[in-house]
Structures are given as C-alpha cells and as structure tokens.
C-alpha cells in the first residue's frame, strides 16, 4: 500500500537549506519536493524520553520544519543511559527545554513548540490539532490509549513504538487507512500484570532501534514515499537480531474506529488503565506504613521489642542494586502463583515492600486473601527508604 503525501511542499528551500539537506535532495524519491514537504511538516512527539530522544533528533536533522514536544518531566540521572537528547549538564532541568536545546543545536531551521503539560483528555485535542502527525514516545498504557483515541477522532496518523528489555514493537495506526491501536490491543492489561521499563529494565540502544523505525515511517508518510507500516506490526528482538512482521487487521468491532464505535469522545484513561488494581487499592487502604514507621519497627526488632518479617517482592537484580537492611527477597511472581504462601510464618506480622509501592500493594492483596489479615506494605518502597533513611545508598 502506498499513500499520498501528508503535507504540501513549502514554497522554497534557501541556499543554506539546500546545502544542509543535499544528501536527501539527491535521492530521487525525496528530491526538492520531498524535502520541501518535510520543511512544511508539523510533527508532535509525545514524550522526550527513551523513544522521543532519537525520534526528535532524527526528525530535526531530517529537516521537519516544526517539532512539538509534549513533556512535563525533568531530567534524572537514570534517564541518561538511553535518553540521548539530554546530557549530564541537563540533570534537574525541564526535559522539554533540554530537548529543545538539543534539537536547535542539531538544526537551527526547526521551529520548536513546547507543551510542558501532562497530556490528558482536557488538553489533547487542542494540542494535537496543529500537527500533521503524532509520534508516540510515552511509557504508559493510559497515555497510549489517550493518544490513539485522539488520533482516531482527529483522523491523524499515529506512529507508535514500544520497548521492553531487548524487545521492541512498532507500527503506524491510522484509522482512515487501516487499524488503530485498539484494533491491535482492545484493552490494556490489568495493573501489575505487565511490568514497565522502570520495573523490568530496557536496553538503552533499543530506543534507537525502535525510534528510528518511527522516524522512518514519519518521513515516508510526510513525503508520500514507500509502503507505510500501516496494518503491520514490526517485532524486533535484539538478542536474536531479528525483525519479524505480523498482520494487524482493522477490527470491525473496534470500540473507537469500528463500524459501531462505543468510544465517540475521549474517556477517563487513568480509570480505563488503572495504576493499581482495585483489589490492591483495597488491601493497601489502612494497611500502608511509611518508611519512618518501618525504621522504628526495625529498631524495635533489633532491641527484641518487636517481631515481624520484612519481605522485598522485587526481582533479584533490583535487590542486588539496593536493599533495605533486614529484608528477605521473595519476588512478586512467587506470590501470584501461590508458591510463596506456604513458606510464610503464621506467628509473625508480614511487612512487604518493593521499589515504589505498586507491586507490594498487589502482593498485599494476595497475602491478605490468604488469611494474613494484619499484613502491611511500605508506601514509597525502597526509593522512599533511600531518600528519607539512608540517602547515601544508590537509587535506580
């Protein structure tokens, strides 16, 4: 399938621009016409993180005339392993501003528009309205469904990519010409069932592998060249070094782009995706202690005045990076499959913790369900512990 160019050509390229883009201009399929289309194009990148970094840098270098950046976060040291648009000197700065500076350093002819807000149902339509195409560099399901639905309603192409550890996926969703994200995955997983990169990790350079596919597809759509990745899912495995393709069909029963859509306006995406399951939220209610409470309990236990078992439900690799003294490791999966339950002491209170409190709340629901009604979990997890109790220890 080929599609007509998304953007009309700009009236001209300056002498300086011709010199800058000469390696594009001498490709017959791009030429002056294609480069002028890129100059006239307005592309919005949602997120200036792992995928957004290479995407923004290559879109800028390619000569896309207007680049929008949606980003509300600040640069953290743990971002720099993969978010190459930011540098050491940017730690603590606004990611949007840091990304803008890098874009302009790469190509001063780009007009950058910053949207330093958290994208939600109230602002997405207004922000997207100005752009020809949306590149997705977000890191959570709620924003991905929000971006998809807004793109369907606004009839705009959505260049999507997703990464985890050594695996990446990419596609172009465009309901006008093929399937949307909901045709591929009708519903998000329940909270806690699919780990995020913050929980499971990601190979830094994987961002470039998938981000470069996204930019390639954006350029093809803008200039109207080649066969777009519409109706196809590209699946990349870095360890095997393979790219495989599977078909994505337009689902006639799709909730947003199907024959009889049930989603005809934006919904509450946080509620749709949830950040924590209902059972976990219920279990954590009135059974959450602070890291300061935990410190007092540990001190009392050392004095022989208290007794409990502190269980870290993270993965072994995380435990190795940093741990709370006195904690024993039993990963979340061993609670979910039930294997850990028989080994739990019945004569001691159970105290659970994880990285920030999400996984321990999920395990708390399981443990309480198994009859350990006085179990608690530590709000904020080991990260809060390091911040408030042992600031000399590393975070991740």
């Amino acid at each position, binding site marked *: 399938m080929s599609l007509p160019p998304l953007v009309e050509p700009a009236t001209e390229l300056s002498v300086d621009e011709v010199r800058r883009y000469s390696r594009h201009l001498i490709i017959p399929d791009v030429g002056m016409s294609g480069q002028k289309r890129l100059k006239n194009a307005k592309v919005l990148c949602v997120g200036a993180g792992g995928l957004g970094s290479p995407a923004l840098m290559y879109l800028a270098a390619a000569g896309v005339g207007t680049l929008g950046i949606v980003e509300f976060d600040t640069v953290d040291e743990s971002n720099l392993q993969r978010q190459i648009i930011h540098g050491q000197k940017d730690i603590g700065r606004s990611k949007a501003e840091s990304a803008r500076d890098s874009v302009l350093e790469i190509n001063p002819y780009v007009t950058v528009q910053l949207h330093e807000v958290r994208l939600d149902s109230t602002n997405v339509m207004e922000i997207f309205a100005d752009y020809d195409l949306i590149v997705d560099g977000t890191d959570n399901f709620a924003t991905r469904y929000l971006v998809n639905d807004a793109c369907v309603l606004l009839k705009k192409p959505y260049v999507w990519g*997703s990464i985890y*550890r050594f695996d990446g996926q990419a596609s172009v969703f465009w309901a006008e010409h093929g399937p949307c994200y909901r045709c591929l995955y009708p519903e*998000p997983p329940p909270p806690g069932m699919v780990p995020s990169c913050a929980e*499971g990790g990601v190979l830094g350079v994987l961002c470039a592998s998938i981000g470069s596919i996204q930019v390639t597809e954006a350029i093809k759509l803008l200039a109207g060249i080649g066969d777009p990745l519409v109706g196809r899912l590209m699946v990349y495995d870095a360890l095997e070094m393979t790219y495989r393709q*599977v*078909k994505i*069909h337009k*689902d006639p029963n799709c909730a947003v782009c199907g024959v009889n859509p049930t989603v005809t306006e934006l919904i509450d995406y946080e509620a749709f995706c949830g950040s924590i399951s209902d059972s976990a939220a219920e279990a954590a209610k009135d059974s959450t202690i602070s890291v300061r409470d935990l410190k007092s309990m540990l001190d009392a236990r050392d004095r022989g005045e208290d007794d409990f078992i502190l269980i870290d439900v993270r993965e072994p690799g995380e435990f190795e990076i940093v741990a709370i003294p006195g904690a024993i490791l039993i990963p979340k999966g061993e609670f979910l499959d039930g294997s850990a339950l028989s080994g739990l002491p019945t004569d001691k209170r159970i105290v659970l913790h994880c990285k920030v409190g999400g996984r321990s709340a999920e395990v708390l629901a399981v443990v309480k369900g198994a009859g350990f009604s006085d179990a608690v979990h530590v709000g904020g997890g080991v990260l809060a512990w390091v911040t408030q109790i042992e600031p000399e220890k590393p975070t991740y």
Partner: protein
Amino acid sequence: MTIEVRIPTILRPYTAGEKLVSAKGATLQEVLNDLELNYPGMGERLIDESGLRRFINIYINDEDVRFLAGLQSAIGENDSITILPAVAGG
C-alpha cells in the same frame, strides 16, 4: 502434532527462561492446554473466563487468531505460534 511456540519475555519465568518451547495440539485451545500442563500458571496469564485476554495477541504464523477462529483455530503441521502481550515502555 508438535509445533513451536514463541514465548514473550514477560512469560518466560514460567518456561525457566526458554524463548522457544514445543507444544502439542490440533487447535490453539489444545496447544494452550498442553502449555499449561508443562508450564503451570501460564494458561491463566493468557486466558480468562471470557476467552483470550484482550491485551494478549496470539499469532499462527503472521495471522492474529482473533481474526481466524480464536481458540478454535486449527493448527497445521508447519505452523508456528507467537504470543505477544501489550507492553507500554518508551
């Protein structure tokens, strides 16, 4: 018949880290039953009471089984199965 099933990263804890496993069955349902037999707990991650979970896609070769016959999709001798859950990292 025995066919090859490609296991995604997030389900590899059930297969002791194996990425490619063998399973038997003439339909997808039979293959998933066989997987559950050899890798207890995996079935529940793929299927709930209403069928294939909505954030899990299973492909026979490059076709999404939701657009074939779902869990009743027939498995041929040279087919391969790929399980792909939604991930949101970026």
